[in-house]
């Protein structure tokens, strides 16, 4: 009995030490680094043109990537759960691919394809549309990396509600669109929002793929995570810490939102 108890404490202690070293202390240190020169220095860092540009670029990217993922995610989940077609299971596993390949590789693929010498790049450049080292590429890379979140959250819910409610709606005269809007969508809404929160968190924080695709030009194509890295390398520690603190805050907010939504999703009546 006694030894069991002490074993328990040793285990918990080990976990706490480990988490402190890799998570808690670094997280706190980010905020310490951002504020240790005083609040004014922190605000000053946030006022820099390069930071403002990075923030704006990040928000624009998220504002485009999120809806893209919602639309694609809903279409894919609906097709996979409602239709039987050849390659259905193949599609299901392909959707997971962005999770398993390195974001840097994902970024590189885009550069190779859409870059000046790529299959599509030359042609797009000819009509004056630049993808790589520009916003379209950043959006593409972000969407690619976050592709699975919405689909993965929505598919199990669509499967769980089954098609009986939808058949019921059809017998009551509803069209396909009415069924989707009035029956399917409300049933999956928490899962969908949950998927969007995850997409959001990842979009904001994506570094690898974006760093490759954007060219990491400070003040022009740097998103927030890229800005953190560039600022740090340029000995602008406070600016790096300030931006990191902002990212960490958004991350914590996402985590809280995620927990609340997960709880709501388990209550089907609301």
């Amino acid at each position, binding site marked *: 009995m006694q030894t069991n108890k002490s074993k328990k404490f040793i285990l918990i202690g080990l976990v706490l030490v480990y988490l402190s070293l890799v998570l808690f202390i670094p997280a706190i240190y980010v905020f310490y680094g951002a504020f240790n020169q005083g609040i004014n220095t922190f605000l000053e860092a946030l006022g820099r043109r390069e930071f403002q540009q990075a923030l704006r670029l990040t928000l624009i990217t998220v504002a485009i990537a999120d809806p893209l993922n919602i639309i694609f995610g809903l279409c894919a989940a609906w097709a996979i759960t409602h239709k039987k077609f050849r390659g259905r299971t193949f599609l299901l596993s392909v959707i997971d691919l962005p999770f398993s390949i390195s974001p840097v590789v994902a970024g590189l693929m885009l550069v190779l394809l859409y870059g000046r010498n790529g299959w599509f790049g030359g042609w797009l450049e000819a009509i004056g549309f630049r993808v790589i080292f520009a916003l379209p590429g950043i959006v593409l890379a972000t969407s690619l990396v976050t592709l699975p979140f919405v689909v993965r959250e929505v598919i199990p819910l669509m499967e769980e509600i089954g098609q009986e409610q939808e*058949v019921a709606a059809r017998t009551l005269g509803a069209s396909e669109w009415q069924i989707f809007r009035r029956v399917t969508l409300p049933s999956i809404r928490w899962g969908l929002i949950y998927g969007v929160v995850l997409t959001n968190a990842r979009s904001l924080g994506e570094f690898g793929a974006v760093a490759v695709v954007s060219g990491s030009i400070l003040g022009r194509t740097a998103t927030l995570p890229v800005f953190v890295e560039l600022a740090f390398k340029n000995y602008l520690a406070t600016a790096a810490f300030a931006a990191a603190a902002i990212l960490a805050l958004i991350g914590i907010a996402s985590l809280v939102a995620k927990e609340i939504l997960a709880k709501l999703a388990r209550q089907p009546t609301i």
Partner: protein
Amino acid sequence: MSIVVERVSKKFGNFQALEDININVESGKLVALLGPSGSGKSTLLRTIAGLEIPDTGSIVINGQDTTYLDIRKRNIGFVFQHYALFKHLTVRQNIAFGLEIRKTPRQAIKRKVDELIELVQLRGLGDRYPNQLSGGQRQRVGLARALAVDPQVLLLDEPFGALDAKVRKELRDWVRRLHDEVHLTSIFVTHDQEEAMAVADEIVVMNHGRIEQIGSPDEVYENPATPFVMSFVGEVNVLRNARSLLSNAYLSSSSSPVYIRPHDIDIDTFPHPGSVSTMLVRIIPIGWEIQLELQIEENFTIAAQINREQLNQLDLQVGQQVYLKPRNVKSFPEFAHSSQQHFTSVNVK
């Protein structure tokens, strides 16, 4: 609003789900499709609803050929075994769904929903969500929702199948009374012969995608058309080789199996002319009804049914000798060769 099913066949791959089905449901009737699972009864219902399209044949509702008509335009009410209520909507919103799709004015919807909530006895529960209701209440919501759009016909797919025994009986009696009030042409699917007989005006007995018999509950029970109906509707002893009973005047030559219902057997403790001596091996009391297992020879038992009063009068004990005499037996010489596929053993329940 009559429903006519004409020469309908349907295959799923190699599986013949429906074969040459012909049914004529008169306006205002309540009809049961009765059969074991896989008999095609649900497929037939779904075909009438428009959820399946038959390979051949036609469905005519109220004089209009609806075989290929979109389900949305058929104006049918459909009730599901597992209710299929919209979980994110309240009782009121569930009932109003079909009306909202039809763009009915709000005032009219409110009136109709109030009326239906009253009809299905759910007053005060209108703002609840489906998972706050009992199974019986959910199915009432399912019914109200189907009735809200004033359907031409009401189709119910094992509507009581997911309920426990007591609620099941209450709800089915209630549905029968409701039908007597509303007189909406209705078809319901069931695998429970008692349910079919208690509720329906007419029973369609199905097996292997074919119709075995159509008739009133009395007809189906008293004059089963096939060995399958005999054994599926009500309990029955099937005596394939009734040598021990052959002396009995009822059992003439014929080599086809003989069918005797357990309650069509007289039991006594002393012999009568034509009675057969047996050994009482089991007494199974089911409330008022008492089932007896009687051994005629080794590995050959027969089920008989008496009531508690008779049991007390005869003072029967397990192991004693009793004499049985069938009152009513039936055989189907025309099915002599095909009966093999229906039964494999003496059916003692």
